[in-house]
């Protein structure tokens, strides 16, 4: 075979080899950054919204591909299988909302050992198993947001208000209420008259809220930093025919609160926005792939501004997102 013939043959063989590679759907485009976005489980509206935000960020950054995946049920074993397949696809980054903070650590370590940037969002992976964790919010930000919501619900920002919390030992709620009290001085018109506990149960919360309405006839606002408490309190206000006199606010899910916003017992409430969470998570993942260092640094996250991570790699995204009549229906379809 002469030299030209050899080159021709080689070219033909290479060409033939390139054809099937071109068909493969998951092959990598040049310079593309691929981010595996792992949900707690598929078929959950919350994570569909997270994916929507991630796609938005991917489009904005450019040349980023989001691989949205997750197990069928919320098990650690299922998530491990999914992460395994992402490792073998040689993705550049993996972002996980963990079903189990501990059981995922070994597989996440393996991913990092193979050069993949692993982060968690929403629900954290143990510190050894991820570079950073994007928390939807922080105690500080939530507490302040609750004060602001109470002021917005009270007429002219003045009046008595009460808190319907979860249990007296709920770590999260107690931390938020402590922050609320710390910043209450910024709202001189507001007066906190009582904190009661509905134990995160619908009937207990309803009973406590009804008792509050009887005990304080001039109560203006009930704040409930619990998704169970806010719905039960709104129901109590409606049943006591006090809609328009007493407003309920706090942290709740749009799908559960939409009806009460419609009824008028809730003016506005807050919870993290999953679209923003997916958006910020994607930005952080791409920042890390591009060489940024996580813990102890601030990383830009597009339209959200920037997110600062503490020495343990935990960063809070934003103040909880406020929902009212204008947007609750749209989000009620999501989560």
């Amino acid at each position, binding site marked *: 075979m002469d030299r030209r013939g050899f080159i021709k043959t080689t070219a033909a063989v290479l060409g033939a080899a390139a054809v*099937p*590679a071109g*068909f*493969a*759907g*998951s*092959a990598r485009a040049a310079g593309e950054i691929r981010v595996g976005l792992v949900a707690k489980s*598929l*078929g959950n509206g919350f994570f569909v919204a997270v994916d929507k935000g991630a796609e938005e960020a991917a489009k904005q950054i450019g040349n980023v591909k989001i*691989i949205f*995946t*997750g*197990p*069928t*049920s919320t*098990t*650690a*074993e*299922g998530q*491990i*299988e*999914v992460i*395994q*397949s992402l*490792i*073998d*696809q*040689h993705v550049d980054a993996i972002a996980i909302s963990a079903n*189990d903070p*501990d*059981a995922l*650590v*070994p597989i996440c370590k*393996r991913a990092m050992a193979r050069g993949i940037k692993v982060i968690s969002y929403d629900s954290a992976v143990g510190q050894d198993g991820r570079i950073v964790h994007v928390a939807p919010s922080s105690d500080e930000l939530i507490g302040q947001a609750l004060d602001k919501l109470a002021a917005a619900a009270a007429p002219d920002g003045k009046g008595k208000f009460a808190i319907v919390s979860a249990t007296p030992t709920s770590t999260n709620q107690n931390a938020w209420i402590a922050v609320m009290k710390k910043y209450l001085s910024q709202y001189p018109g507001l007066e906190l008259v009582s904190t009661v506990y509905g134990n995160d149960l619908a009937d207990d919360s309803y009973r406590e809220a009804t008792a509050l309405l009887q005990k304080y006839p001039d109560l203006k606002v009930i704040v409930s930093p619990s998704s169970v408490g806010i719905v039960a309190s709104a129901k109590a206000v409606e049943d006591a025919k006090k809609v328009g006199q007493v407003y309920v606010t706090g942290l709740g899910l749009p799908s559960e609160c939409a009806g009460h916003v419609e009824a008028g017992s809730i003016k506005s409430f807050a919870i993290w926005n999953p679209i923003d969470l997916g958006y910020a998570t994607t930005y952080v993942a791409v920042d890390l792939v591009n060489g940024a260092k996580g813990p102890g640094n601030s990383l830009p996250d597009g339209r959200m501004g920037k997110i600062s991570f503490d020495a343990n790699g935990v960063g809070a995204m934003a103040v909880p997102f406020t929902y009212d009549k204008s947007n609750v229906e749209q989000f009620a379809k999501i989560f």
Partner: protein
Amino acid sequence: MSTLSSSVQAREPARKAFGWKKLLRWETLLGLVVILDFLLNAKLSPYFLSPWTLSDASFNFTERAIMALPMALLIIAGEIDISVGSTMAMASVLMGLVAQAGFGTPMVCLTGVVVGLIAGGINGVLVTVFRVPSIVATIGTLSLFRGVAYAVIGDGVLKSYKPDFAYFGQGYVWGPVSFELVLFLVLAIIFAIVLHTTVTGRRIFAIGANPIAARLSGIRVDAYKFWIFVLLGAVSGLASVLLTSRLGSTRPSIATGWELEVITMVILGGISIDGGQGSILGVVLSALLIGCVTFGLSLLNVPGIVLAIVTGGLLIGVVALSSIVGYSGRRRRH
């Protein structure tokens, strides 16, 4: 009853024409499907054909495949055990407690296997002494064992395992060949030898095919069944050691729903649910097939819901296909 006679066939090769019958054996069919899927995966995903990818893929099914081996024996003997996932959870919880108490890795592993053994013994006693039908007895222990696991640690976690414990579920014997995979292959060979070449194996088939005839011919049917339950329990404990080591931690929800995945592997492997028929080779091939199909699809990022549909479809498809092509003897019993 072709499986029973698999060794007989080998001795009398001239008994029948070599052609179709042999080609249509369940194992041949499974083997072909495995090869087909392997090629398809290699074609569809540029990442599939790498030793490390294949090794990673094996982690997803070896623990279940290891349990499928004694489960095959039990189903061949005409019984079933659906408590194996819960047995794993209970074993894992006790291993966690033993580790927390400061014991080393050998003691932790021993605990896992012994707890499994006892759990298997309880199932065995319920079935052979108290005469509870195995499906009923193990539905009971399915809840019982899982309940014990939840009662002990609730929503807590046990993770004070020593670093060397990680070897069982995460370690490699040579290059990308994992400890789990080697253990599975060794156990598969042992199970195949026992089931297909020894008197014990022959008796297990006989018990499943016709327990009354087996008893009348002097086989201690209940003793056999009891010990297979114990064996399955012990192997579930072993699988629990592997899984706990792979996860590096214990929660009571560990291995939820695995019993059905193990039984799916066994049935797809050609073990008759009525007992009396099947081969270890079939089980090994079906484990490979399930592993290959699910991992291949997940490399293409096909959602897990579709994976579940494919596995279910595969099971029905292969069973129906074998029925259509008229498995001689396979569908006939008694």
